[in-house]
């Protein structure tokens, strides 16, 4: 397989006395969908936040495209082509859909030295991308606050897909979605992956993970039990692993050399 886009080496993250991540190593490759699984509080969100520049790891190394990367703010990650759908969506209810869609990445229209927010362009793209995801908006100026939870999630996903040039991180993107929107998201993951983009997909749903995942990493209490390839692990085994690793001893064999 191709070289990893991101290598996370021995990442630790402490919040005061809470150890959220106790040394997690994962590598993410272009063109794969890497599923991140684990119980509530396992550290999945914390882990991807170190990848998207929200948290600075307490220790450990992030290698992005072969070079050590020091993301000090989310903007650095976004500029590097890493887009994230956070579990608690980064959406602002009082702002319109298109203002939200382009928040932090506003398209610019130049008049000599004066640079303006290109609202027409923003509105057009927003409507188009939302339609692709199966959501018909009343208009691009509709406030996000008036959207349903699932519709908001879809805006966040459409936005990340639009801006995720190299890596797309989805933290439980399907948790509030209906059947049609979920299959849309899974299909989008598949499509994006085929374009060579790396997808990091966090979910609690084994069937969703199995449907699109190429590799699976399970986190448990801030640690990883290693990464399994598709075909090396059955849905039942994955389910057991996520449940907290009680049956871990019997499953270690099936994780095989990748532990």
């Amino acid at each position, binding site marked *: 397989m191709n070289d990893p886009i991101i290598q996370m080496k021995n990442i630790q993250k402490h919040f005061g006395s809470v150890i959220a991540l106790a040394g997690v190593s994962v590598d993410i490759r272009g063109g794969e969908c890497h599923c991140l699984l684990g119980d509530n509080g396992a550290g999945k969100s914390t882990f991807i936040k170190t990848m998207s520049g929200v948290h600075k790891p307490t220790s450990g190394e992030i290698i992005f495209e072969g070079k050590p990367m020091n993301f000090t703010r*989310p903007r650095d990650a976004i500029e590097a082509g890493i887009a994230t759908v956070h579990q608690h969506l*980064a959406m*602002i209810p*009082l702002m319109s859909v298109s203002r939200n869609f382009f928040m*932090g990445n506003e398209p*610019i229209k130049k008049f000599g030295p004066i640079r303006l*927010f290109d609202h027409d362009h923003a509105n057009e793209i927003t409507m188009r991308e939302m*339609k692709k995801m199966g959501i018909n908006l009343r208009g691009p100026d509709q406030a996000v606050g008036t959207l349903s939870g699932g519709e908001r999630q879809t805006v966040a996903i459409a936005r990340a897909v639009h801006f995720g040039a190299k890596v797309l991180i989805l933290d439980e993107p399907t948790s509030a979605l209906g059947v049609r929107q979920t299959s849309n998201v899974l299909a989008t993951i598949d499509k994006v992956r085929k374009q060579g983009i790396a997808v990091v997909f966090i979910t609690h749903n084994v069937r969703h993970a199995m449907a699109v995942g190429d590799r699976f990493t399970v986190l448990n209490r801030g640690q990883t039990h290693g990464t399994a390839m598709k075909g090396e692990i059955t849905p039942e085994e994955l389910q057991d692993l996520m449940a907290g690793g009680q049956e871990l001893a019997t499953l270690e064999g099936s994780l095989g050399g990748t532990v």
Partner: protein
Amino acid sequence: MSDVSSGDERIKEMSKVRKALMRPELGGIVGTVAVFVFFGLFAFDSGMFNAQGIMNWSVVSAQFMIIAVGACLLMISGEFDLSVGSMIGFAGMMIAIFGVTLGWPMWIAILVTFVICVAFGALNGYIVVKTGLPSFIVTLATLFILRGFTIFIPQTIERKTIIGGIREAAEGDWLAPLFGAKIGAPIFNWLGDMGIIATFERGNRMGEPVVDGIPMLMVWALGLVIFGHWLLTRTRFGNWIFASGGDADAARNSGVPVNAVKIQMFMFTAFCATVFAVCQVMEFGSAGADRGLLKEFEAIIAVVIGGALLTGGYGSVIGAALGALIFGVVQQGLFFAGVESSLFRVFLGVILLAAVILNTYIRRIITGER
């Protein structure tokens, strides 16, 4: 693009009224109309609507507008500045100290004052952003610190709290007229000659029009309103202002430099306060330690009447300007109508409450909360 939204038959067309309600300026527009109708009916003969009267409430409104623009953008970005009033007093005093006591050329005094005040704004912002304390508390501290200096410094140096002679010191200066001059004198002279506006009938200004020009203060007010509105609605930075106040964490996670935005808004607020102060000392010719008292609240009230949410993330500069206009017209209108001026405060309290309740209701509509 028009057929895009027609794809979902469940989406009910929003009624026009509801849509109009969602514009932040609505309250300001309705209030402005109401105020003019009211005074038009009850105080038309009071002189409020002749040239002098119009100039009178226009100048007062313009003063409110200048500080309201700063307060508005700052409030939308999610913060308050309670030190605006003290900043006005402080800035005026600095100009007097530099330009009169120390005898510096007026333009240097003005520029240095701007630098000092904007730096104080930046300090306010920096402390708020770095400590995460509510701006209410931080700027309350600045309110006292600046007011204290504004009294202490002239008292120590000059043994008084009012310093005059600013107009004389500004004589012939190239920068001072930008704040203190009046423009359009020929037009007003012509209007006076044509009899469209009244002229003085006796005294040493006999024959001159009662209104002899538009003070630069009003030009500043208009310029700042246009600039603020443009910045907020037309630029990328405007989107960042909304985002910072709407939800700072969400904005940060999306790559908006929230801290920088907030600090710059504090600086802009300080800039507006300084513009106010310079115009004021140029008009009065003196600086007083008690200048600008309570101005911070008047600015905030104008902004809230103009439809901005106290919690940030929503508002309009045009709305704030209309709020300032309502403020100015009512304050001066009650004076023209001969109403006891203390009633103005009653009015202020009532309208503030009404505006906040209306805004909360509008917010519910926008965010779909029930």
